[in-house]
Each structure stands twice: as structure tokens, then as C-alpha cells.
């Protein structure tokens, strides 16, 4: 296999000297073009892990390398989408300006930037809403705007922090399919690391699922999904392999002993 895009080694984060660390001994690789999911309970260190990966918080020990370079501050090659779209979008800017914001320092003509913004908005299914303000859109559409803003600078890796936890079930399914579509784009399919507490979502989307569990949070299992692509909400979710995988993952999260190999993984 090729060199990993993201290499995480022996990562540990302590917020205080007393008590357990938030996460400990976290080691994994993410390969180019992969869609990797990390599942774990709420409060289990998922957000801590993501903040360490994108350089927003320094680790206590261990390291993160992106494209072979040590991550010590937010790298240009990474973009993140937060759970709370209503807070992460800038409410004083319209949708077009929000999505254009990451391009503000790029030295290309405004018309070209504008075209890039329109293209990425179309990619996430939001043609012609550039002039609207975030609050004029539904929650699902706002999260699409946040995804467009993350993608507009063509990052190598897209980090998603529980991105669909605040939308209704139908919208969630649509957004999941959007993530699948973005990942499978022929020319610039993006590497995605998707953090969620939703086991079904992790199995439905990912090539591989890491289970973050225990106190401090550790990676207790890595499960290859191996479901055929393209995936379909009804077909994929009713396949026997999908059901076996979700049961296995439920078991792993419930009983967090380190498991090396598992029956359902290949």
C-alpha cells in the first residue's frame, strides 16, 4: 500500500495532571482516497482526537503527520466540518462569501474564485443560493454550505466531526449520500475522516471503522467494512453483512477490551 496521507502515532492528550487522559495510545494511518470512520460514545474523546488531528490542540505526547510533515498548527491540506453548522458559518456573510472566505488570499482573479465557489456549491447540491444568508436556509442546507466551504480550497483530507448529529433523519440520509458522492468523485475524490457516535452511519459510509472506547479513549478495534460500492440507503442497510457489522461494532463499544482480529473483518 502507498504512504499514508495521515499518520497518527501514540497520541495522548491530558487536560490535567490528575485523573485519566482524554485519549491515550492512539495509533492509526489514513490512506489516500480512504473513507475512515471513528465511532465512539459521546464524551469518549472523539472531538479531542479530531482537534489533535487538525492541529487545533497540541498533544501531550505522540505525533500527527500529514503528508509526512508534522502537524503543529492547522495545516492547509486539512479542512474540518463541525457539528454545529449554525455556529461555524459566519452569519454576517452570505453563502457565497462564506464559501469564498478560504480563498481570500489566493492570487487569482475574482471571477475565477467566483466560478470555484459556484462549482463547489453545485457539487454539494446548492446551485444558485450564493446570495442567500445562512439563516435563510434549512439546517441540512447550512451543513452543505459548511461542507462546501471546507471543500473549496481542495483539501487533501476532510475531517467531519459528528456533522449530521443536529439534523433530522431524512436530511441525515441525504447528507450521508452527499458524503459518499464527494468521496467517489472521479477527478478529486477526497480522503475523509468521519467521526460519529452513530454506528449505522459509520458502517454505511466507511471503508474501515475504528472503535474508540474506554477511559482514556483508545482504539480498541479496526473493522474493514467491505460492503460493495456504490452504496444505497435501503439495499446496503438491509444486507446481512451490514447487520453483522453493526452488531459486532455494538458489541465492541459496549465491551471495550482490546480486540485484535474480529470475525467479520476480512
Amino acid at each position, binding site marked *: 500500500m502507498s504512504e499514508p496521507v495521515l499518520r497518527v502515532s501514540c497520541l495522548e492528550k491530558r487536560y490535567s495532571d490528575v485523573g485519566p487522559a482524554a485519549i491515550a495510545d492512539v495509533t492509526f494511518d489514513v490512506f489516500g482516497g480512504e473513507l475512515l470512520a471513528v465511532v465512539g460514545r459521546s464524551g469518549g474523546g472523539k472531538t479531542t482526537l479530531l482537534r489533535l488531528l487538525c492541529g487545533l490542540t497540541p498533544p501531550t505526547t505522540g505525533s500527527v503527520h500529514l503528508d509526512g510533515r508534522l502537524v503543529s498548527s492547522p495545516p492547509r491540506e486539512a479542512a474540518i466540518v*463541525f457539528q*454545529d453548522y449554525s*455556529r*461555524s458559518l*459566519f*452569519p*454576517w456573510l452570505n453563502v457565497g462569501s462564506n464559501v469564498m472566505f*478560504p480563498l481570500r488570499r489566493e492570487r487569482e482573479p475574482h471571477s475565477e474564485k467566483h466560478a470555484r465557489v459556484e462549482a463547489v456549491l453545485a457539487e454539494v447540491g446548492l446551485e444558485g443560493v450564493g446570495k442567500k444568508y445562512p*439563516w435563510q436556509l434549512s439546517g441540512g442546507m447550512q451543513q452543505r454550505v459548511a461542507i462546501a466551504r471546507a471543500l473549496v480550497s481542495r483539501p487533501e483530507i476532510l475531517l467531519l466531526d459528528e456533522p449530521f448529529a443536529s439534523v433530522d433523519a431524512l436530511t441525515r440520509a441525504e447528507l450521508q449520500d452527499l458524503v459518499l458522492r464527494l468521496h467517489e468523485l472521479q477527478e478529486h475524490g477526497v480522503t475523509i475522516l468521519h467521526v460519529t457516535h452513530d454506528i449505522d452511519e459509520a458502517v454505511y459510509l466507511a471503508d474501515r471503522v475504528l472503535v474508540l472506547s474506554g477511559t482514556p479513549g483508545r482504539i480498541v478495534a479496526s473493522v474493514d467494512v467491505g460492503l460493495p460500492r456504490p452504496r444505497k440507503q435501503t439495499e446496503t442497510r438491509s444486507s446481512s453483512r451490514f447487520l453483522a457489522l453493526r452488531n459486532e461494532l455494538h458489541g465492541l463499544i459496549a465491551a471495550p477490551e482490546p480486540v485484535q482480529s474480529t470475525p467479520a473483518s476480512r
Partner: protein
Amino acid sequence: MKTSAARRLVGPALGVLVFVAVTGIWQLWAGAEDSFLVPTASEVAKRAWDVWPTSDFLSEVGQSMKRYAAGFAIAAAIGIALGLLVGASHAARRTLDPFLECLRAVPAIAIVPAAILILGLGDASRIAVIAFGLCFPILVNTAEGVRGIPLEVRDTASMLHVGRVERASRIYLPAALPSIMAGLRIAVSLGLVLVIVSEFVGEQNGIGYYLIIQQSKFDYPALYAGILFLGLLGYLLNRLFLLVERRVLAWHYRAAGE
């Protein structure tokens, strides 16, 4: 339908009723008192009608408004800049807070004699008093607004490599704008207080000076006409500010579903 329409009329009608009642009581009481110290409402109204449009009176108003505007602008510039700094940086906050807290406790009126001593009996000392007094509500509200910016906004700024200066001007300033406008609104009313008080001492013009002169000339109807004018002026400044605020914060009010 009928009841809701009726209800919508009751509020304003009550307001007018109270206004008329108070003016009526004043008129009757002052009439019964029959003292030159308490002019009746009709005397004051008549005097106001005569005095307000005169160029003498309007030039006093102009002098006061000039000082008010200058003091307000200086206070807004310093208050917002320092507020952004104190709100954004823990180090700046720790360093400046003890100093600012002490300074803030000083009533602005108390610095009038010192301001005259240092800056003389001109516009500069009046403007300094106004700027000093207005600076703090703006500063405190700005800093509060910056501290209340959600973590997601800060993290987004970090992920998008927004530098310090750009962060202050393009992220913190708009994000804290609702709070900044609240501070400016306090300053709109407080500024009128300070401009009048600062003109009470050793000034040759302005509305504050006008009031003092009418008092010493025993022209009490003109004194009350001046006070009445200030009430009206304060009300209009407030309405004007609200209009500006509605425009500047349109995105905020609509996002909040108002």
C-alpha cells in the same frame, strides 16, 4: 379581529392620555402656585415655540452636538479597539484589567476640573470628558461580545489561517457587533448627560451653558424650554440610533428570528 385591533389602539391611546394628564396637572398646579419660579406648561410651550427656532439657540445646540459627536467618535474608536484587544487576548486582559477597572470607577463628571486644568476652557476639555465617560460602556460591551464568540467560530478562523489583525477586523468585530451596538446605545444617552454637565463649568456656549445663563437671568420659562428640548433631542438620537442598528445588524435580527 376587532379585539386585537382595539388592543393595538389601547397602548398608544394610554400613552397619549398619560402625557396629557401629566401636562394638565403641571398646568393646574403651576397656575395655582402662581410663582415666577414655576412657569406653567403653556408658558414653557410658548417660550419654546419662540426660542427653539432662533439662530442663537440653534447655534448653542450646534456647539453641543459638535462636542457630542467628537467625543462619541473618539470613545467608539478607543472603546472598540481596546475591547477587541482585552476580549481576544488573555494576556492583554490580565495586564490591563486592574488599570481599566480603577479608571472605570471614576465618574466622568469628576474629571471635569482636571480636564479644564490640562486642556483649558475650550472644546478639547469637554470632548475629553465625553470621550472618557463613553469609552467604558463601549469597551466593556465589546470585550464581553468577543468573549462570547462560540468556539466553532474561533476554530474555523484557526483552520482558515486567519491572522491576528484580520481575525480582529473580519471575524471578531462582526461576530461581536450585536454586543458592540448595545454598548454604543448606552453611550448615545450617556453622551448627552456628559456634554451638558461639561458645559456647566466655564463654557461660553452650548446647551449646558444656555441652561446656566437662563437660570442666572431668571428666565425660567426659557430654562424649562431648554430642558424640554434636551428630552426631545435624547429621544430623537435614540430613535436614530435604533434605525442605524436595525440596518447594521439586519443579519443578526433575522438570524435570531425577529
